């Protein structure tokens, strides 16, 4: 079809209610049909890799945790694996199981979070509230085990920082039972609801060939029918022994189409898979040390004299996370630290997914890869004065003036200062 004057541009972002994080998508739209999309990112670039290369490895570990609040176990696991590889550190067996338990707990909470967000993008707020209500259980368990609801600060080079004590095991088991009982209800609410199906079936299709050539990872690739799961393909920790199998819509008796519905299927089934893994780990976990460096000074000394390079990978809830690190003897900071978050691989998949879809589908398609923009963007840029950027002080002054104006109009009595 020739481009007519009916084609106009709709900007989505960097600030938009459909986007939980800043990214700019410019759509060329004809009526309600999308003809083209331009993706611009970088609005949340903080320069984390750069900052990491200015800090010692222990500080970098916590920085990596803050690449993303949702994948806050995935990035630390990938970086610890990379550093352990580079510095030749062994991880005690129990610690390996503990890392698996924590990452599967995170997968549950991340997938439930996604389910809620997806429902919200569809205008189905009830499901959002429902899933986020049940998500509290796993957050409570994470809080119970790690002491924090997010940013758990659990992995450390050579092991983990906190053990699961016997008194906590029944609580974790209770949580597993809770979700087992609930999973059917969730599947019912998402996959057998006619209005959800109407909005997600055959929307945002990513074919298996496209997923393969665009190097999609995680549930985005698996929904297209590619059984790609780092836990099964390239084993690490104890995943090789746990018999993880990549979940595709076939496990739900569906032929994969790669649409949003399939992505929901994969994510919800993975919640069940994570429950299985947690249960198995709790049973199989051997006793013993949880770290090979109980004393921090010894760890710091070992890392300082380590020399080498290493890769660490992990299947985060959203897909493959990979960290490359290079250490040099006598330097506490990593010489090179490169992070790849899943969204980095998946962002290219948006282009075929958006093609010829409707404007109404934009939010759910954008959300279907479970984008984590802050994972992907990592450089902070300060722009001074150029391109009519308003400085923060100026913005503050303007908004205060306006509040004053409005309150003066509201009440004849002048307002007292302060926020109380």
């Amino acid at each position: 079809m020739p481009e007519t004057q009916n084609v106009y541009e709709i900007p989505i972002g960097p600030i938009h209610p459909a986007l939980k994080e800043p990214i700019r998508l410019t759509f060329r739209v004809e009526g309600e049909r999308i003809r083209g999309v331009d993706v611009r990112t970088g609005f949340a670039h903080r320069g984390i890799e750069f900052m990491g290369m200015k800090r010692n490895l222990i500080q970098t570990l916590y920085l990596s945790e803050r690449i993303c609040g949702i994948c806050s176990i995935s990035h630390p696991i990938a970086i610890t694996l990379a550093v352990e590889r580079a510095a030749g550190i062994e991880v005690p067996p129990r610690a390996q199981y503990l890392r698996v338990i924590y990452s599967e707990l995170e997968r549950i909470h991340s997938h439930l979070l996604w389910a809620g967000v997806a429902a919200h993008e569809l205008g189905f707020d009830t499901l959002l509230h429902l899933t986020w209500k049940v998500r509290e259980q796993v957050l409570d368990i994470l809080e119970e085990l790690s002491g924090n609801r997010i940013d758990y600060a659990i992995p450390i080079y050579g092991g983990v920082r906190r053990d699961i004590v016997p008194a906590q095991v029944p609580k974790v088991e209770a949580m597993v039972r809770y979700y087992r009982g609930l999973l059917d209800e969730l599947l019912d609410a998402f996959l057998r609801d006619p209005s959800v199906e109407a909005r997600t079936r055959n929307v945002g299709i990513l074919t298996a060939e496209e997923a393969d050539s665009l190097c999609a990872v995680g549930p985005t690739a698996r929904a297209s029918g590619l059984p790609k799961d780092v836990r099964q393909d390239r084993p690490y920790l104890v995943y090789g022994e746990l018999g993880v199998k990549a979940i595709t819509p076939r496990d739900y008796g569906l032929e994969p189409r790669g649409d949003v519905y399939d992505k929901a299927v994969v994510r919800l089934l993975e919640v069940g898979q994570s429950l299985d893994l947690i249960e198995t780990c709790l049973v199989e976990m051997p006793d013993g040390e949880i770290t090979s460096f109980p004393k921090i000074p010894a760890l710091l000394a070992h890392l300082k004299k380590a020399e080498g390079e290493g890769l660490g990978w992990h299947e985060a809830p959203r897909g493959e996370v990979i960290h490359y690190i290079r250490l040099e003897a006598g330097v506490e900071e990593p010489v090179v630290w490169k992070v790849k978050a899943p969204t980095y691989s998946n962002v290219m998949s948006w282009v075929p997914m958006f093609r010829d879809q409707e404007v109404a589908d934009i939010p759910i398609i954008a959300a279907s890869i479970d984008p984590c923009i802050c994972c992907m963007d990592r450089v902070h840029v300060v722009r001074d004065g150029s391109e009519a950027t308003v400085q923060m002080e100026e913005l503050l002054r303007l908004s205060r003036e306006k509040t004053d104006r409005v309150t003066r109009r509201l009440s004849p009595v002048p307002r007292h200062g302060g926020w109380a």
Partner: protein
Amino acid sequence: MTADQVRRALTAAVPGLQPELRPRKVGVRAPVEVPELWAEVPREGLVAAVAALKAAGPLHISIISGRDVGEEIELLYHLAAGYGTPGGEVMVTLRVTVPKSDPTVPSICGILPGAETTEREKIEFLGVNFTGIPSTAHVFLPDGFPGHPWRKDDPETAKLVNRLVEWEGKDA
């Protein structure tokens, strides 16, 4: 796919290539060895090496990492050969070194369209040129951003860092 197959594919494609096998022991009860291959590739041989890997099985690019080593720029292509085969994936890292005077590398987007994001990122951050890349538009940095942040001799980045340090000092 086994490490041996990958190694044969690589050496057949680029004569003189010497892939180094770095296996890692994984697991607790019945440990297995997960192979990793690292190889130095001249930039002329890069496309041939990636094409050979692609011909040998499903191929995935994780990321290209890079660093500034004085007069040269080192690029590491982290690829996963045999992607999607249970227990049969081999992590391949190809190391390409280019001089700063001519930082040009052939693009592998023709073989792996998914490499575009990471190649574009290298254009922004390291000032590497990729021949044959579909688009060179910025992905992360604003258009017209001065300099390349990962180059150690980049005066613009140095200024930026100084400004950030000053700004952070205010915060403390």
